[in-house]
């Protein structure tokens, strides 16, 4: 657990997510415990159906675990009200989806503005920050474009700009390159790398080893359990404790 006053940003204790399909019970998460500290760059890997998305959704406060505790910045998520969860999704978390999930009728700028609208940022500041965020992902010249007027990579960059606009504690990306070709994928990965270097905390789901190689820590999931949790690159600022949970089978 956290030493030297450096509390973990994300802390899960024995998370379970169980789906009941008729008489059958599917454990998408099977007792998952780990912690993530500031400015880590974590890749979550594992075969299809191993529970990666489920885990991300729980961390992103989009989904609730069936069992277990989840703390984000020391707050026990299960105790939060609906509005408090919305606040955390808005302020603490920047979620990047495999399918981008932009509002198709809105311009890039408006899509990026949206999280700011929901936290009541005054419109002048809102525009400024949304523009700055788009500039950060090199889309300063595409602000007025709607998603269908943008390439896949550009759309994902809009989604990343949207995730960044509230300066969240953590960026969660579920297969952000899954719908992109390799070259565009590399472009997006470079963007994440840059964001990480700027001090952001990133958790990213991927199938691909060369994408995971960008991270400094890889959590391997299998059948809803953490199979392996390895540090691949040391971070100069701090050294997160390698925490390995044995797959108990």
């Amino acid at each position: 657990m956290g030493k030297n006053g450096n509390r973990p940003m994300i802390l899960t204790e024995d998370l379970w997510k169980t789906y009941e399909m008729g008489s059958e019970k599917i454990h998408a998460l099977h007792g998952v415990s780990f912690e993530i500290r500031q400015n880590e760059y974590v890749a979550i890997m594992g075969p299809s159906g191993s529970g990666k998305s489920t885990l991300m959704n729980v961390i992103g406060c989009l989904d609730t675990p069936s069992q277990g505790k989840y703390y984000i910045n020391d707050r026990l998520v299960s105790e939060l009200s609906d509005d408090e969860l919305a606040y955390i999704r808005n302020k603490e978390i920047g979620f990047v989806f495999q399918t981008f999930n932009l509002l198709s009728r809105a311009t890039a700028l408006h899509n990026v503005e949206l999280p700011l609208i929901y936290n009541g940022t005054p419109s002048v500041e809102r525009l400024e920050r949304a523009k700055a965020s788009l500039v950060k992902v090199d889309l300063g010249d595409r602000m007025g474009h709607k998603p269908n007027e943008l390439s896949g990579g550009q759309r994902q960059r809009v989604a990343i700009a949207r995730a960044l606009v509230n300066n969240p504690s953590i960026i969660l990306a579920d297969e952000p390159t899954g719908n992109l070709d390799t070259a565009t994928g590399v472009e997006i990965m470079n963007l994440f790398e840059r964001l990480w270097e700027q001090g952001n905390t990133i958790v990213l789901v991927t199938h691909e080893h060369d994408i995971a190689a960008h991270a400094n820590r890889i959590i391997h999931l299998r059948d809803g359990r953490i199979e392996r949790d390895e540090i691949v690159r040391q971070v100069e600022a701090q050294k997160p404790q390698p925490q390995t949970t044995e797959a108990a089978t």
Partner: protein
Amino acid sequence: MDFLEAVHISLDSLKANKLRSILTLIGIIIGVMTVIAVVSIINGLNTYVSTKIFNLGADVFILSKSPAVILNIDDWEEAQKRKDLREEDYQAVKEGCQHCQLVGAAVSAVGRVKYEQQSLTNVTISGWSAAMPQILDIDVVSGRELTPLDEEHKSHTCVIGNDLVENLFPGLDPIGREVRVDDLPYLVVGVAKKLGSTLGQSRDNFVMIPVTTFLKEYGSRRSIRIFAKAYGQAALEQAQDDVRLIMRARRHVPYAKKDDFAIETNQTFLAIWANISRAFFLVTIAIASISLIVGGVVIMNIMLVSVTERTREIGVRKAIGARRHDILLQFLIESSTLSLVGGLCGILIGVVIAKLVSLFTPLPAVIQAWSIAMGLLVSTSIGLFFGIYPATRAAKLDPIAALRFEL
């Protein structure tokens, strides 16, 4: 969430589904349109009725055998049994009514007026006493009025209305010429000022002759009407009481019995009209309400469809921090904006209808500001009310279920 932002989002999604939005709004449009148009038309009718139909002076009342408007059969039967009003009654009222400035008698028939080869049928032949034009405010524009002397001598003189001038004397001065009214000769001594028409019926198609002459030529066995003008509006009640007392005394009506004659003022007529127009108004409101409720249900339905179609959008909004009430507000604003747009269309069409009515009929259909305000208020409220259920459904959606939703 910023209110304007929500309106903007709503208008955007309305624009994205133009045809559907219009179809959705038909109920609201018809409802609001009906209210606006009918309120304007009724109002025009009211103005029309009070200025053109029941246009007795405020200090004038009429004594007659039976009321001008009878609304049930019993009253009608009772009225049939009443005694006629006679010239003697007129004389008695004239002498006995202390609060009356003027008292006049009038009786009329329909007949034919001829001048040389020209003739005009369906002319109102009014037997008027000399005070009548003054009581009814009908001036003579050329020649002279009928005088008490004409009355006394039962002379064959007449004052004619504008229609007769135009039809019988084109290009001629009628004064001093002789017309034949129902085959009897009358000397034209005056021409009355043009009165115009009411409900498409000319009010200038008349010839006035002395009431005494009328009774002589057309028979005295018909009920006359007695018109009285009080000394100002303040004396109207007292003048009516005078007349009532005189008539009851003449007819020996016992204390407990109702009058066996009718005394009516402009107020009486207007009150009757007010009843009719209120009934008309209530029927309209009922029809409009049905159409508004149907419109509301359609809006609810379309909003439910919209919520379903946009489940993923709702999921995205929730994923980036929209609270329940943000989503609720968005859909409520959307449904009320939708029906407000319907209300605006309804108002527009209603105003156009009212304008057309006042253009093509004599009714001065006046658009009422309050009906427009009500149209706006009602349409918005309908949208709000019927939007609650769909908006609540949207707001309650679970973020992850919404994001995973597939149509």
